[in-house]
């Protein structure tokens, strides 16, 4: 039994990390009143930027490469998210539509650039990925050490730490209150002197940065290269995690961990005695079916921030 946990828990954290980052981004954007269907595309840009930078500068930067690549991914996606922010906030464009366009644009742009830089539609595997590490000291704790601190990706810990920071910022700081205010009732917020547009811009850029990290982590821990199919639906899973987690950073983290767990079950499942005779298709669809059941059963109604998806027009009633 313990053996199963030893393989399941690290796998869960491994699969969940990119989803956690991206879902946190989704929470910030949607809490400010901007639906971000474009998370998928922002992850694509993150993955593209991370892999490209990693391949081009691995020789010069050595073991620092993945971390600088991650920063590059973050900045690239934050800049790219302006393409969502400007139409959705300033031009009052339909946010869903804009997000869909962002997804297409990111994929087209990423593959187009890969062809420009590397002359082919799929990159080589990166030489400096993020490696697993044992956490010194903690790994020696009996049972728990083996479960949580052995052979782990440090990005998984960062993701979980980020979730708590994101929660604190959103619910315990004036800045977080402003984000929630413009997402719930922008006119009231405006009346109180909160700059609705600026706040929404910041929130969308934060979501771009976080989705960029998510894409970068995915590329440098899971896929290790970039092609048209590197990011295939992870962004949409992150959106699901946002809604599942009821627009709360910790809830979104929980949902992402749940998805990671379900995904690791389908990978590890065949070696678990209880599950080895179950046809693989059940394990493959389990995460999705369980999510639907969970939503229908005990999570109940999830209500979006009130102004989510509605462009704010100054002076309108």
């Amino acid at each position, binding site marked *: 039994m313990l053996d199963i946990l030893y393989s399941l828990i690290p796998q869960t954290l491994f699969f969940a990390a990119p989803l956690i980052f991206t879902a946190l981004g989704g929470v910030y954007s949607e809490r400010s009143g901007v639906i971000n269907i474009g998370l998928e595309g922002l992850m694509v840009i993150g993955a593209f930027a991370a892999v490209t930078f990693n391949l081009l500068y691995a020789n010069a930067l050595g073991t620092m490469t993945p971390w600088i690549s991650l920063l590059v991914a973050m900045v690239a996606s934050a800049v790219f998210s302006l*393409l969502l922010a400007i*139409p959705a906030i*300033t*031009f*009052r*464009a*339909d946010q*869903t*539509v*804009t997000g*869909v*366009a*962002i*997804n*297409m*644009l990111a*994929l*087209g*742009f990423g*593959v*187009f650039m890969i*062809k*420009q830089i590397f002359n082919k539609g799929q990159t080589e595997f990166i030489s400096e990925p993020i490696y697993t590490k044992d956490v010194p000291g903690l790994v020696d704790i009996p049972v728990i050490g083996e479960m949580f601190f052995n052979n782990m990706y440090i990005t998984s810990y960062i993701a979980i730490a980020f979730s708590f920071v994101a929660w604190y910022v959103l619910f315990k700081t004036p800045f977080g209150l402003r984000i929630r205010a413009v997402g719930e009732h922008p006119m009231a917020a405006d009346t109180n002197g909160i700059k609705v547009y600026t706040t929404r811009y910041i929130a969308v850029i934060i979501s771009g940065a976080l989705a960029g990290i998510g894409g970068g982590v995915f590329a440098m821990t899971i896929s290790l290269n970039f092609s048209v*199919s590197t990011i*295939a*639906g992870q962004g*949409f*899973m992150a*959106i*699901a995690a946002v*809604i*599942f987690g009821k627009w709360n950073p910790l809830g979104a983290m929980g949902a992402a961990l749940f998805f990671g767990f379900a995904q690791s079950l389908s990978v590890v499942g065949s070696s678990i005695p209880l599950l080895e005779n179950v*046809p*693989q*298709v059940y394990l*493959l*669809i389990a*995460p*999705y*079916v369980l*999510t*639907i059941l969970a*939503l*229908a059963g005990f999570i*109940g*109604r*999830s209500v*979006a921030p009130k102004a989510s998806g509605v462009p704010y027009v100054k002076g309108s009633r």
Partner: protein
Amino acid sequence: MFSSTKFNFIIPIISVVLGLAAGAIIMLIFGYNPILGYQALWNGVFDSGFFMSETVNRITPYILTGLAIAFAFRTGLFNIGAEGQVLVGWIASVWVGTAIDAPTVIHLPLALLAAAAAGAFWAFIPGILKAKLGVHEVIVSIMMNYVALHLTNYLIRDVMTDNSESTEQVKQTASLTNDFLIGLTGSRLHLGFIVALFMVLVMWVILERTKLGYELKAVGYNQHASNYAGMKVGRNIVISMVISGLFAGLAGAMQGLGSFGTAFTNTAFSNLGFDGIAVALLGGNNPFGVILSASLFGFLKVGALNMSTAGVPNEIIEIVIALIILFVASGFIIRWALLQLKKGERK
């Protein structure tokens, strides 16, 4: 001044022009010749009957997924699950097409019906969950997409065939292809476009000419007002999703009984459903607008394949399409700019 219906036409046209212009600029920046690039795009469709037929085959499912998403949008729902509904419709049509023996007059309609029913059922689940439990239709639909992907792969590998990646061809009695058209064009041009155009009429009639359509739209505008007026909100949400899924399921049948004549395993989504979102939006969620935007999409996607002869990566077209959608979505600013221009002229 421009009336608002005029804007509905002008904004997409301006957006298409701006999108193509932006594509040309990008080609210039990266050292390609945009004239040669667009020429190759044009020739890629109109140079041969074969590719013109391929384009029609590409347009047909786009019309149907566009209708599916437009219908849901018009009734206040976002059917992001068209992707999965296409897949289940596809496999249902192929199943009926391979497993049953019957004359064409029965077999073909039956296969189409199976596809529509499968798509409708796949959309019914998010619909009923939203209506009864208030679960967000977007998240359930996204999940249903993945279930459809894995389930259809499983059915093809383990149930319909013996560990093969593709099913047999559907029987000729269930096929949408037609010897006359094949002889004429040398391609797999099939009669699906008639089905698609018919469904355009169906959507228009439902939305504009029936009490049901009126109620569906009313629920989309304002659930509470509709409820107060005595309409059954939950029931209408379910009906909307089912009709939307029915269109998407038929799009799958176009592939299964027409363009491919078979079903095969997929490692990723076909994107017919996701592209349908763009088709619906560009078409202003209007059934006739969907025909135009689906045609543009089909033309760009098929023509793009030929752009490599001019040395241009075909992803440029993905970028152009995305920009067109961004421009359409930003219609407010285009309208504003046009009005400023008009004002300037008058002074």
